C-alpha cells in the first residue's frame, strides 16, 4: 500500500462522494421540506444517464449530451411530480413508498424496452480523456473534472440556499413548513421548484456518471440506497449534512473496499482474509450508519426545528 495509491483511492472516494452529494442534496430537500419519501430519485438519475448516452451516441458530443440530459431530467421530474406525486403529498409514507416503488419498476422496464437490457456506451469528452498531474501523481482528468464540477455546484447551491430569497423560502420550508404555507407563499410552486432542482441535480449526476459507471436498467437503485444512507447519516433536510455525509460515505466506502482486504491479510490467515475482506468492506458504510444512528439518531448535521 503506497501513499500514491492511497491518494488515488481517496480522490476516487471524493469523486463518488460528489456524485452522491448531487443526488443527496435534491433528495434531502424533498424529504425534509415536502415530507415526501421519493424512492424514484434513482430513476431520475438513471434517466439522466440514458438521456445523456442517447444524445452522445447520436451526436458524439459530450457537451451536448450534458446540455440535453440535465434540462430533460428536470422536465421529466416536474412532469412526474405534477401527474402522480402531487396527489401523494398528504398521504402517509407507506403510500409514497409504494407509489414511487411502482415508478421505479416502470422506468426500469421503460429503458429496457427502449434501449434494451445491455449497457449503453458513453465516453468522456476528448479534452478530458487524459490524466492530470497532481503533486507528481497521475489521476484521470475526467474524474477530476467531476470533482471540480461537483464542488462548483455545491458552492452554487450554498449561494442559492443562503443568499437568495428563494433559498430562504426553501430553508424556511425545511424547518417550518406549515408557517411558510400560512404566510401565503405559493407552496405548490415552491415544491415543484425544489423537486425540479433535485431532478436536475440527479440528471447531472447521471450524465456525469455515464462514462465511468454502466448505463443500464436498474442502475439507479444501488446509488439510491447509498444516497439514503448519506441522508440518514447527515440528517434529513440538511444540505450541509448531505455534503459532509456524502463525502464521508464516498471516501469510507471506496477506501474500505480498496484497502480493507489488504489490511485484513496482515492480521488474518490468507483464505479467511480473502473471504472476509470484501464482505466486511461492503458492509462498512452500513455499520457506520448504524453507529451514527446509535449515538445521534437525528444525524450528524440535523436541521434544527424550533
Amino acid at each position: 500500500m503506497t501513499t500514491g495509491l492511497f491518494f488515488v483511492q481517496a480522490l476516487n472516494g471524493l469523486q463518488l462522494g460528489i456524485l452522491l452529494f448531487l443526488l443527496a442534496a435534491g433528495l434531502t430537500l424533498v424529504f425534509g421540506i415536502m415530507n415526501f419519501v421519493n424512492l424514484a430519485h434513482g430513476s431520475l438519475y438513471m434517466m439522466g444517464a440514458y438521456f445523456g448516452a442517447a444524445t452522445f451516441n447520436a451526436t458524439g458530443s459530450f457537451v451536448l449530451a450534458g446540455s440535453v440530459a440535465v434540462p430533460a431530467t428536470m422536465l421529466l421530474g416536474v412532469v412526474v411530480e405534477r401527474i402522480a406525486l402531487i396527489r401523494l403529498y398528504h398521504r402517509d409514507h407507506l403510500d409514497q413508498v409504494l407509489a414511487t416503488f411502482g415508478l421505479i419498476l416502470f422506468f426500469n422496464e421503460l429503458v429496457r424496452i427502449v434501449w434494451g437490457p445491455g449497457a449503453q456506451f458513453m465516453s468522456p469528452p476528448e479534452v478530458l480523456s487524459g490524466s492530470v498531474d497532481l503533486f507528481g501523481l497521475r489521476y484521470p482528468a475526467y474524474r477530476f473534472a467531476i470533482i471540480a464540477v461537483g464542488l462548483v455546484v455545491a458552492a452554487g447551491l450554498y449561494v442559492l440556499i443562503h443568499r437568495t430569497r428563494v433559498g430562504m423560502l426553501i430553508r424556511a420550508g425545511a424547518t417550518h413548513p406549515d408557517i411558510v404555507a400560512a404566510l401565503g407563499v405559493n407552496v405548490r410552486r415552491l415544491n415543484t421548484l425544489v423537486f425540479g432542482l433535485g431532478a436536475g441535480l440527479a440528471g447531472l449526476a447521471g450524465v456525469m456518471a455515464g462514462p465511468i459507471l454502466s448505463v443500464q436498467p436498474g442502475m439507479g437503485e444501488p446509488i439510491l440506497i447509498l444516497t439514503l444512507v448519506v441522508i440518514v447519516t447527515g440528517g434529513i433536510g440538511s444540505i450541509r449534512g448531505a455534503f459532509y455525509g456524502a463525502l464521508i460515505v464516498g471516501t469510507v466506502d471506496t477506501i474500505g473496499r480498496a484497502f480493507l482486504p489488504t489490511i485484513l491479510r496482515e492480521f488474518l490467515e490468507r483464505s479467511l482474509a480473502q473471504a472476509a475482506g470484501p464482505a466486511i468492506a461492503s458492509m462498512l458504510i452500513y455499520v457506520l450508519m448504524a453507529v451514527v444512528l446509535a449515538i445521534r439518531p437525528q444525524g450528524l448535521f440535523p436541521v434544527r426545528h424550533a
Partner: protein
Amino acid sequence: MSDEGRQLTLRKTIAAAVLAFLALVPVISAAIGEPYYVTLFTRILILALAAVGLNLILGYGGLVSFGHAMYIGIGAYSVGILAHYGVGSGWVQLAVALCVGAAVAVVIGFVCLRTSGMAFIMITLAFAQMLYFLAISLKQFGGDDGLTINARSDFGLFSLRTNVALYYCTFVVLIAVLLGVSRLVHSRFGMVIRGGRSNGRRMEALGFPMLRYKLTAYVISALVCVLAGVLLANLTKFAAPSYMAWQASGDLIVMIVLGGMGTVLGPVVGALALIVFEEVLTGWTTHWMIVLGPVIVLIVLTANKGLYGYIVERDARRRLP
C-alpha cells in the same frame, strides 16, 4: 369478532373459500394434469407467509419496513450453508435459521427503531441492502450466482421430497401462523402494537415502554419471514441473493396493501392476486413490469383498503370492533 356468533358473513365465506381452495390445489392440479401449479402455489404460500409476518408490524404496527426480505434470505441461506457443509437435518437447519434470524433482528431492529417515519423506512432498506451485498460477496457460497442445495431438508418424521408434501407442509405452517396472528392481534400485546400505530406518543404517556414491544413485534415478524425463507430454499433447492433484493421487500409490501393491511388474511389474498396477475401478464409479454408499475401507482392513488380489506370494512361497518 369471533364472539359475535356464527353469522355467515361475507367475510367469513370468502376467507373459508380462499383457504379451502388453497387446501385443494394439489388435488386440482393432479386432476387437470398440471403439476406445475403445485410449485407455483407453493411459492404463493411461501410469499403469503412472509407477507403475513411483515403485516404484523406494517399493517398492525404501522412500521414500514422496506427490508424484511433479508430475513427470507437468512432462512434460505441457513438451509443452504448447512446443506453445503453436509448438515441435512431440517430441525438443525430450522433451529439455526431461527437463532441467526432472531439475533440479527434484535440488533438491526434495535438500531432501526431508534428512528421513526421516513428515516425508519430508509434504514430498513439500507440494512437489507447490506445483507444483500454480503451474500453476493460470499464467493464460497455462490456469491452472485447463488448456492445450490442438493436435497431438501430432512425432518425425519416427514419427508419433503415430493412437491405435494412440501406444499402441504407449507400450507400447515401458513395456517398455524395465521391462527397465531389472529389471536395475537386481539391480545394485550396486539393491542399495544396497534395502539402504537394509532398514537405512539399517547401510548408512552399512558405508561407503555413502546420500544421493547415494537422490537418484540419486529423480531416475531422477522422470524415468520425466516420460516418462509427455509421453505423457499426447500422449494427451489437454491439460495440466492435475489431473495433479499430490495424489489423482494417491495413486492411483500405490495401484497399486503393489495390484499388489505391490518387484516389477518389480507396478505394471503394479496399474494395470491399479485402472483397470479404476474403469471398472467408474463404470458402476454416479457415486459410485463411496465404494466405492474403503473398498476401499483393506481392502487395507491385510488386509496382502497385492499381486496380483502374492503370486505372486512363492509362487515365492520355493521358491527363495532
